[in-house]
């Protein structure tokens, strides 16, 4: 598969290597594109999430589940430095992308986000036409070739082309919620990132629109790696290959914080969880 050159820094070249999978319970059958090593996220002095280590497997869907306030969205946003604009937000540990720490000094967050895109909880198309929504990312990324072709390709991949091909100049805000979310996915894949982060992408959608997005995720794994945060366990079980279960804990100083409890293949996590807390959560005894 053709990949974009992975160069996140202003330096001419970065050593790119793919580390082996080290997390427990994970086979080495597929390569990891990202790797979290002891990642903690702080807001000011408050440590919101502590010591997260897990891999993100290439061309697979990795789900992050857990109760509210367990830090799953916080960790997701740490993967493409979307926490940077939040005043006081800080990350410790290493977030490796092809072996390169995304928080290293010479890494440009803008380049990080061009490689690792994000789809948000509430569909958030720009107040522009459908065409311009997709073209925006292409334009700012200076993507060569005919813009029309790229826009069509992205909309087709997002399974939206047939529904919007006759109204590309119409406002994106006139689309239904499910269509808007697929437009946001089209906009994200148009710039050809390697990884797509999805933060509860279906929570504002009806079941039919949700099913369409889930089908789409499966299709997208041909070309992309997907990380999805969801509070819907059935969704995680349906769409993901790997699942990370987070929970909120209270430490000795009575400080509440998020923590990764268990990471494994989705089938195993849901049928035979290693940790009692995971079992309690997935069987509905907690959360």
């Amino acid at each position, binding site marked *: 598969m053709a990949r974009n050159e992975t160069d996140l820094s202003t330096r001419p070249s970065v050593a790119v290597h793919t580390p082996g999978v080290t997390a427990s319970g994970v086979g080495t059958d597929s390569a990891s594109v990202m790797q979290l090593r002891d990642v903690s996220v702080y807001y000011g002095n408050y440590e919101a999430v502590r010591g997260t280590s897990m891999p993100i497997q290439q061309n697979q869907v990795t789900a992050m589940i857990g109760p509210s306030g367990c830090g799953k969205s916080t960790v997701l946003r740490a993967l*493409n430095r*979307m926490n940077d*604009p939040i*005043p006081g937000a800080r990350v410790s540990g290493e977030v490796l992308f092809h072996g390169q720490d995304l928080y290293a000094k010479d890494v440009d967050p*803008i*380049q990080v*986000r*061009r490689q690792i*895109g*994000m789809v*948000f909880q*509430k569909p*958030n*198309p*720009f*107040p*522009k*036409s*459908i*065409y*311009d929504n997709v073209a*925006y*990312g292409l334009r*700012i*990324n200076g993507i060569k070739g005919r813009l029309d072709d790229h826009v069509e390709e992205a909309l087709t991949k997002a399974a939206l082309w047939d529904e919007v091909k006759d109204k590309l*100049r*119409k*406002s*994106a*805000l*006139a689309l239904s919620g499910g269509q808007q979310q697929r437009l*946001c996915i089209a*906009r*994200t894949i148009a*710039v050809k990132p390697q990884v797509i982060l999805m933060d509860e992408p279906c929570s504002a959608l009806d079941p039919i629109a949700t099913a369409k997005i889930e089908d789409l995720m499966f299709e997208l794994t041909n070309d992309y790696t997907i990380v999805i945060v969801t509070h819907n366990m059935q969704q995680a079980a349906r769409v993901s290959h790997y699942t990370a279960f987070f929970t909120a804990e209270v430490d000795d100083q009575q400080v509440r914080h998020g923590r990764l409890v268990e990471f494994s293949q989705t089938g195993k996590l849901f049928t035979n969880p290693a940790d009692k807390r995971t079992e309690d959560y997935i069987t509905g005894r907690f959360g």
Partner: protein
Amino acid sequence: MTLTNKSPDPRSALAQRGRSALGDRVFSWWTLGTGLLVLAILGLILITTVREAWPAFDAMGFRFITERVWDPNPATGDAIFGALSFAYGTAISSLIALLFAVPVSVGIALFLTELAPRRLRGPAVTVIDLLAAVPSVVFGLWGILVVGPALVPVYQWIHDVFGGVPVLGSLFGPVTTGRNFMTAGLILAIMVTPIITSITREVFSTVPRADKDAALALGATRWEMIRGAVFPHSFGGVVGAVMLGLGRAMGETIAVALVIGGATNITANLFAPGNSMAAVIVQQFGESTGTFTAALIGLGVVLFAMTVLINVLAQVIVRRAEARMKGSVA
């Protein structure tokens, strides 16, 4: 169950309650009334000013707006009242004001909403709002005593450099005084900047975090994020802010009267003295009688009409541009 409704008949339970119905009716009368009041006041202003100005309109006909000569006391013949020179002065000084004020205001507003550290925002906003609190006569005196004289060498230098260039040469013509279109425009720019800044800042701050996040997640730089997410969202509001600023600039009287130079003059030379409609009214009203007074009121009518026309035009532009930018909704 002492709290049970005494009348189990659903029809009476759903019947209109007198209290809330009265409240709603009073509210709707009140809001309708205040809305109509605005229209009535506007209409009355228009009718009475046109009536007061009628002798001048009657004497001059359409020449009132096409004639550039303004001569209330000619040595021979009838007085001539032409508003064109002053309309030109109003337009050109306001245009200069916007040319300087809009980029500065939008820049300040962007800085305050997107870049400035949180603890700097409050004080900066206060300082800018204070600028709006300075009385216009103070700006006028400052312009006539300090800014005008100080700018003469600058104007002279600009004339020396660009005087020979084709188009710029006519814009930056000979300098005779510091009281001219350019000085009036600059003083007006300072006066309208706080208004435009404070409204554009409000508009920018209504851009949803989600829209900005969307742009950033596509790998946008801050500037690309502003262009892609902030501007399309705020275009209409920013134009509204500019229109309010323009309204202030066109209507500004005393500051302009002090610094524009007081000449009846239509010239491309921005360094030449001229006059504006509002300034002429305040300068000459005290010594006017009869048709002369009517002509001055006529200037007010023309100014009023210009302002309304520009506002309507701006709304059309905003609607067109938004339809193009955002895509049609239908």
